[in-house]
Every structure is written in structure tokens, then in C-alpha cells.
């Protein structure tokens, strides 16, 4: 099903704004309910987590930072036993994820050995590479799932069932279970599961169906280590993606279904939205790695994708999405300043941008929206379609309703560093 020719995308110099891999803690500690996320890191990592992921609303989070202070810099291998005991006593987790960060990476801390030395049969401590030197935003969920794989029981080769790959909330998971049941697709479970103790069995007969587009490495690892089959399809976002996903998945089980009518119904249900999106110019600046399927959907919905940038693109894992975006300017590791120039030259109707750039874009009169919102909304599958399309139309409608900010007086004195000629 993969296209014959390689779809083209451009790679730039990664001068974009986003978060490091520690970001995944923000949702995974909530998803895996019996886990604890321990980051071996510095004050910087702690400051990042508390400020940007909205995680400060929880008084007792199941994550913490083993804080590297100056005296720790000279020690070759950190001593974490006491901290593990503290975490055990306070949180009673079934599993502890030990996340790397930049400083111990530079110090060349041997993480695997460290995790192994802390691990016990009753409380595994699993190494998760997540440092900002290598990982962006949601990408490190991939590392967490790789760490979990050895704890998935090995399924018998004739156990032909699907395992859905990627963290989704319980409501979405239920939707996928129900849909699979309706189509006659047997389900082995989800990776990650809601509890460490309920990981799905994976074997040579397993079909791996990725729900999230940022899990290329673990998908590859599962096929290599367990001989499982990786579903190559669109990701289940939007009527088009969801239809392809289920049809292709069913086909893996020898079930031929035609969901064209279902897709048409789904489009019809959001017709008032797609009418508003038709011809609108949408620009993705690169942030949470959901960009490819989101751009593909919004293009199918009638919008014009001016640019789809993403931190990382994997030719194989994203093959179908890339093929669907043929003709669109797709950029890996973009340069934000170049993007800004392009936006000023040909103003988009909506920019899906990062937390650091959205308000400044709005200040420049460009309608923009936090991409992070997509990561925290139920936008998967048939049931997610209205939410998904609404994410795009709401911003456009809201700004149309409010009208343009026509006088710089409304931001006067709010930002001290603004150049005098702009103030």
C-alpha cells in the first residue's frame, strides 16, 4: 500500500520552538495509574514541568525530579536507592519510569545499568530516554512504550488479535473497543494500558495498530522482537483517516468492509464546519508531532495546507500520511523565522503553533492556536470527528466574531521589551 515514489519533504535546521521529551510525563503519569515518573535531572527540568504542562494543578503528582545539584556533578553514578524508598512509601507504584535528561546525558550517566540496579521483581525501574538533547515533546512516549514492551506477555503465534498503540483516554479506548467489536476484530488490548499490571500480550500473530503518529521506534521494535505485524494505514483522525484505519485493520483479519457510507455520514455531520474551512489557508509550525495527520484531515476537509511542519518525520511510519499530503509543503525540523517570513508574505487564516509563539502571532494579527490543545482533546476515531473539526473552526469563528484588533493602544504598556516603534 505504500506509495512507489518517496514523497518529498524538506529538512531545515531545527530552529523551532517546542518542548523536550519530558513533556510526556504530563499525560502519561495520569494515563498509567499505578506508575511513578522519576526524572534524573536538574532544577531546569523541574521548572519546565511545573510551568508549561499545566501539571501544577495537582498537589500530589506521581512524578518527581531526582535533583542533580552541584555536588552530584562529580559523582560518576548517582545514588537513587533512598529516593526509590521514599517514592515507594509515598506513592506505592507498580512501576517506576526513570527518565533521562540533558545534564546526566552530558555526564554520561549509564542509565540502563542504573535502572537495572534499582529494579526489583516487585517494583521494576525502567529506563526511559527522554532528554532534550534527543527528544521532542510527545516523542518520548515512544521511549516509555519501548520500556514497557518486555513486560507484555508473549502471545501465542496463533493469537491473532489487535493491540492499539499509543495512549488515549478511557473514553476513546472504549470507542475503539466497541468499533472493533462491531467489525468483528478481536482486541488484545492497548499499549500503554491503564495499569502496568494489565499490559496486553503481543506475539507473532498480533497486529499493531498505531493510534498516535509519534511512535515509530516502538512500532519497529515490536515487529522486530515479537514478529508482530504493523498496520500501515492512515492514523484514525477525521472521517477519512478513521475509515482507512478500520478498513485496513479489518483487512488484516480477512474482513473486507466498505466504510464509505460511514465516512460520508461522518462528513455530513460536520458539513457546516467543512463549509467554513473550505479554501482556508492553514499553517502548521511544528510542535507535538500530530501535524501530519492533522494536516491531512484538514486538507480533506477542504482547507488549503500552506505548510505542514513537524519535529520528526519517519518515511515508513508516516508513509500513508505523507502520500496523502502529496503536493503540500512538508518540512521536518523547520526554522521558525523562515516560517514567520512566509506567514507575513502570504498570511494564513489559521496557524497551529506552539505555546511560545501563539500569543505573539495573535499580536501580529495572525489567527493562531495552541497545538498542545490537540494533544489533550478526544479527537480520535469516529466519535472524535466533531471535536477535531471544531478545533479548527472555533479559532477562525471566534476571531471573526471578535473582529480585528485595530489599534495598538489595546496592548500598550503590557510588554516592556516591545520595541518603541511598535509600542
Amino acid at each position: 500500500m505504500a506509495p512507489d515514489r518517496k514523497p518529498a519533504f524538506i529538512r531545515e535546521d531545527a530552529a523551532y520552538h517546542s518542548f523536550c521529551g519530558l513533556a510526556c510525563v504530563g499525560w502519561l503519569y495520569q494515563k498509567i495509574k499505578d506508575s511513578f515518573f522519576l526524572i534524573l535531572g536538574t532544577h531546569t527540568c523541574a521548572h519546565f514541568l511545573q510551568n508549561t504542562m499545566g501539571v501544577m494543578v495537582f498537589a500530589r503528582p506521581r512524578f518527581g525530579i531526582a535533583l542533580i545539584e552541584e555536588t552530584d556533578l562529580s559523582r560518576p553514578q548517582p545514588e537513587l536507592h533512598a529516593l526509590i524508598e521514599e517514592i515507594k512509601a509515598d506513592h506505592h507504584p507498580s512501576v517506576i519510569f526513570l527518565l533521562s535528561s540533558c545534564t546526566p546525558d552530558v555526564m554520561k550517566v549509564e542509565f540502563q545499568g542504573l535502572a537495572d540496579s534499582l529494579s526489583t521483581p516487585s517494583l521494576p525501574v525502567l529506563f526511559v530516554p527522554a532528554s532534550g538533547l534527543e527528544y521532542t515533546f510527545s516523542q518520548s512516549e515512544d521511549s516509555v512504550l519501548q520500556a514497557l514492551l518486555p513486560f507484555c506477555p508473549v502471545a501465542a503465534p496463533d493469537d491473532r488479535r489487535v493491540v492499539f498503540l499509543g495512549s488515549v483516554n478511557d473514553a476513546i479506548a472504549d470507542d475503539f473497543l466497541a468499533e472493533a467489536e462491531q467489525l468483528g476484530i478481536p482486541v488484545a488490548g492497548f499499549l500503554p494500558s491503564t495499569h502496568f499490571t494489565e499490559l496486553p500480550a503481543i506475539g507473532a500473530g498480533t497486529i499493531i495498530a498505531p493510534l498516535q503518529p509519534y511512535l515509530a521506534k516502538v512500532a519497529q521494535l515490536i515487529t522486530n522482537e515479537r514478529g508482530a505485524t504493523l498496520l500501515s494505514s492512515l492514523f484514525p483522525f477525521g472521517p477519512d483517516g478513521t475509515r482507512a484505519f478500520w478498513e485496513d485493520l479489518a483487512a488484516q483479519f480477512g474482513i473486507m468492509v466498505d466504510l464509505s457510507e460511514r465516512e460520508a455520514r461522518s462528513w455530513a455531520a460536520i458539513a457546516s464546519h467543512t463549509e467554513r474551512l473550505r479554501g482556508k489557508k492553514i499553517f502548521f509550525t511544528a510542535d507535538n508531532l500530530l501535524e501530519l495527520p492533522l494536516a491531512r484531515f484538514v486538507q480533506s476537509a477542504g482547507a488549503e495546507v500552506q505548510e505542514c511542519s513537524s519535529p520528526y518525520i519517519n518515511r515508513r511510519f508516516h508513509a500513508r500520511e505523507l502520500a496523502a499530503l502529496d503536493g503540500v509543503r512538508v518540512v521536518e525540523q523547520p526554522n521558525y523565522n523562515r516560517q514567520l517570513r512566509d506567514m507575513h508574505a502570504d498570511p494564513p487564516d489559521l496557524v497551529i503553533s506552539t505555546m511560545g509563539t501563539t500569543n505573539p502571532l495573535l499580536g501580529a494579527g495572525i489567527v493562531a492556536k495552541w497545538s498542545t490543545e490537540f494533544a489533550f482533546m478526544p479527537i480520535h476515531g469516529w466519535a472524535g470527528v466533531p471535536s477535531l473539526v471544531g478545533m479548527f473552526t472555533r479559532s477562525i469563528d471566534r476571531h471573526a466574531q471578535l473582529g480585528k484588533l485595530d489599534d495598538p493602544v489595546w496592548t500598550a504598556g503590557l510588554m516592556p521589551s516591545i520595541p518603541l516603534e511598535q509600542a
Partner: protein
Amino acid sequence: MRLAYWMYQGTAHHGVGRIANSMRGVHAVFHAPQGDDYVTPIFTMLERTPAQPQMTTSVVSGKDLSRGTIQLPHTLREVEQRSQPDLIIVTASCSTILLQDHLEQVVEQAHLATEVLIYDANPYRMQEVLASEGLFTLLVERSATAQARTATPSVNIIGPSSLGFHNRVDLIALKHMLKTLGVQINVIAPWGATLADLRRLPAAWVNLAPYRELGLQATRYLEREFGMPALYDAPIGVQPTLAWLDHLLELLNTVGGEQGAPALRRPPLTAFSLDGESTPSSVPWFARTADMESFSRKTAFVFGDATHTVGVTKFVRDELGMQIVGVGTYLEHEADWVREQLAGYLPDELLVTEQFQEVATRIEQLRPDLVCGTQMERHSGRKFDIPAMVIAPPTHIENHLLGYYPMLGFAGADYLADQVYTTTKLGLEQHLIDMFGDAGLDYEDHHTAPTAPPEPAAPASEPAPQLNGDAPAVPAPPAPAPNGAPGWTADGEAMLRKVPFFVRGRVRQNTERYAIQQGYHEITAAVLREAKEMIGG
């Protein structure tokens, strides 16, 4: 090695960012992994900046480390071209400082026309406060130039900054008082200042440095080098504001005497009110009203930075008549100063810690009627069901309000008193609600219930007032489904419970409407799924 959850201060590079985002024409470049760019959104989100803050992360990746490449020269050239700043400040991060890159050489290789300052902020030795204070002091030392004093009485306001606690509105309060006195402002820094403005600092007659955390060292330097008199107090509360005004006039008149200028006098206090004819602050009268009788038995615990901890402790005791049961600060380097300032106010040892758990434990032990603290103490307060208000950084988006809520001056005193009053009062109401059995209600039902009648104006005095019979303070229980509406089956309900609580009420309503349209008699999980698909969550 310790387990850390929340931090009271940001990192050194965040401190550098705060100076860059305060000044005009100063751009910070962080030689750091891309993820350390997270400090930019703190500004764009909390301060809702309408333009991009003047800071750029020059990305260091694992690939760069293994190949020995460095992006910094390229980034510097790009920043020069794009922003044309007067000065670029380069600083390393917690990880890159270990690489021992010779940043001076690297910067030289970039061949910039723009001046570059490599600020050696060791993140293992300094955090946000010391880094921003250190950098700002350095900039003042490099820039301030001896020059003639202004002809008319003038001051510099030194210290207000981006992400400083209520600093933007503190400035409005200070400007209003200075205008009332007829004193001109020479320079405000770092807020809105250029390097050229820093050069002009010595032209002012007097320096105002209200914040212990930023501007203190620079002001001391100006006093030392240029003999500039300085007022180091923070006018928090009515009496301190009066003393501050008198002290300011004294300093100005001393300088004025040397210049042969006529002496300035304090105008009538009504001149400091918004309309020029009312009391400048209602606090003195308010504190003496019958309403506030109960406050004399109320206890307060105060925790924060140095400036606000000292100011607020004195205010709630001296001007509101409350009892202080504990005080603390997370600024270890300011602990002695806080102790000295609060001699006679401290009921026991000053709590000095950077670990929020210790502060939480103290709050739990003391069980005060009011906690004045940071965002973290607000969480602890919620956890222990103790009313809490935020009086110091770190803050949350909820502390970045639009209205005029200064901490300084007469208006600041009014705001603080209002905060104390509404915070503790709400605490009382919360107990009432719990007592009358509302605690079992789910949050979302709370919100989807028919609009509750307005709450009675609860008298603030203890004991608990009787409830007015026809205006219950507790929201009504959730409305039963309207007549003819389909009921929910167990699996439908179960599925609904999995919808996040903050949208659950809406999903319930939409689904019921959908079920009626479709003629379903009951709502099963399948119907809910169908409804979600057709009409959305």
C-alpha cells in the same frame, strides 16, 4: 540528592530571560538544548505578550555533541539580522555549562557588529533571583555614566521587571504617587529601559528600589559610585506608604537644598486618591469597623520571597490586627534580612526552605485561618482546606489578572485588605457548604444545575450566620431529567463517567437532546457513542 516536585524559583536562564524581556534592545541567547526554550512560553502565556520575547535558544542537540558542531555563531548572526539588538547576552544552560565550550572564542568567530555579553550564570550556584539581579547589576555597572542632575526633582524606579509580582501595576501606583508629589521620573529600569536609559541613571536625584530581589545591588552601586541617595523600602501598607513618602521628600529636599531648589511638601492625603478628594485608602477605617472584630482572633501564616513576606506580615498584623503564627521565606540568601526586618513579629524561628513539602507540613501543623504564600501554598491550602492567597511569586495564570491590583502604595493596601477579607470569608462559606451537606455533589452537576439563587451576603463575623431560608447557600441538587427525557442505562452512565468531568455535564445534555430527537427511550453506551459521533462532545 533529593526528590523535588515544585520549585519556588526559576532557573538562572529564566532570570536572564526576565531581564531580556524587561528591556528594549537586549536579546538573550541561550546556548541550550531545544527543550530549554520552555522559558519563552512562560512569558507568552503568563504575561500574554503580544510580541515574541527577545530570547532565542541556540539549539544544542545530541548530534552536535557527537559531531562537535555548534550552532551558536549561526544563531547569533541570525539574531543580529532579525532583531538588531543593542546587546546580545549569551548564557549557557545546566547541561551545556558542563561542556566547557569556549563561548568567548565561539562568539568571536561569529564576527558580529553587535556587542555580545557572555553572562556566566552558573545554574548550579544561582537561580532566577540571583541571576537576574546579577545580570541587571552588571548592565547598570557597564552603562551608568556620571552626568549633571536633572533641573527638577526626579527619581529612578529601579527593580520593576517582566514576571515580577504585580510589577506592572505597582509601577502605575508608584507613578501616580510621584505625579501627585510633583516628582519627575528619570528612568524606570529594567522595565522598558534601553541601555541608553541605563546610562542616564545618574541624572536622577534619588533612586527608588522597592524590591529586595531586583535592583538592590544596582542601586547600591549607584549610591557608592555616584553618591545617589536611595530609598530601599517597599511601601506595602498604609503606614509604610506614609513613611515612604516622608522619607522620599526628605531625600529629595536634601538634594534640592544642595541645588538651591525650593523644598517639596507633601500635599494633603486626599490628593493621592484617584479623584483627588477622597481618602487615599480605606484600610485604616475598614480595620476598625465592627465587621473586622473577628479578625483580631484570626491567625495568619506568611511565606514567600523577601519583599512581600516582610511587607505582608507587617500589614496583616499592624493594619488588619491579625495574629501571626508563622513566617518563612524560600530565599535563603535573604533570611537574615527578613529576620531583622521582622524582629518582634516572628512567633518562632523563621522558616527558611526551598522545599514546598516542609512549608506544607508547617501549614498543616499550624492550621492558620489564612495562608499568605505563593502558588504552592495555595495548593497546600486547598489540600488542608485552609483559605490561602498568593502574595509572592511563583505565580499561576490566575495571578495575572487584568485589573489594577498593585501591591504597593495606598491602592496596594486596599487590594491586600480586600484579598484578605474575601479569602478568609470564602473560607468560612466553604465550611458552611460542607456543613450543610453539599460536599457530596459532583463538580459538574454543580454547574449544570439550574442557576442557584444568589448566595446571601454572609456576615463575615463568627460564629456562622443563620441561613436565610429562601436563599440557600448551597447549590440545588442536579435537576431530574425533564419530563419525557430518556433515562440512562447503567452502561450509558458508566461510559458517561469516563468523559472528563469538565465537559461531562454538556455531553449529558447534548446526548439527551439527541436521544429525544432520535426517539430513543433510553440512553445506552451505544446511543451515547452515536450521539458523540453525530453531534460532538
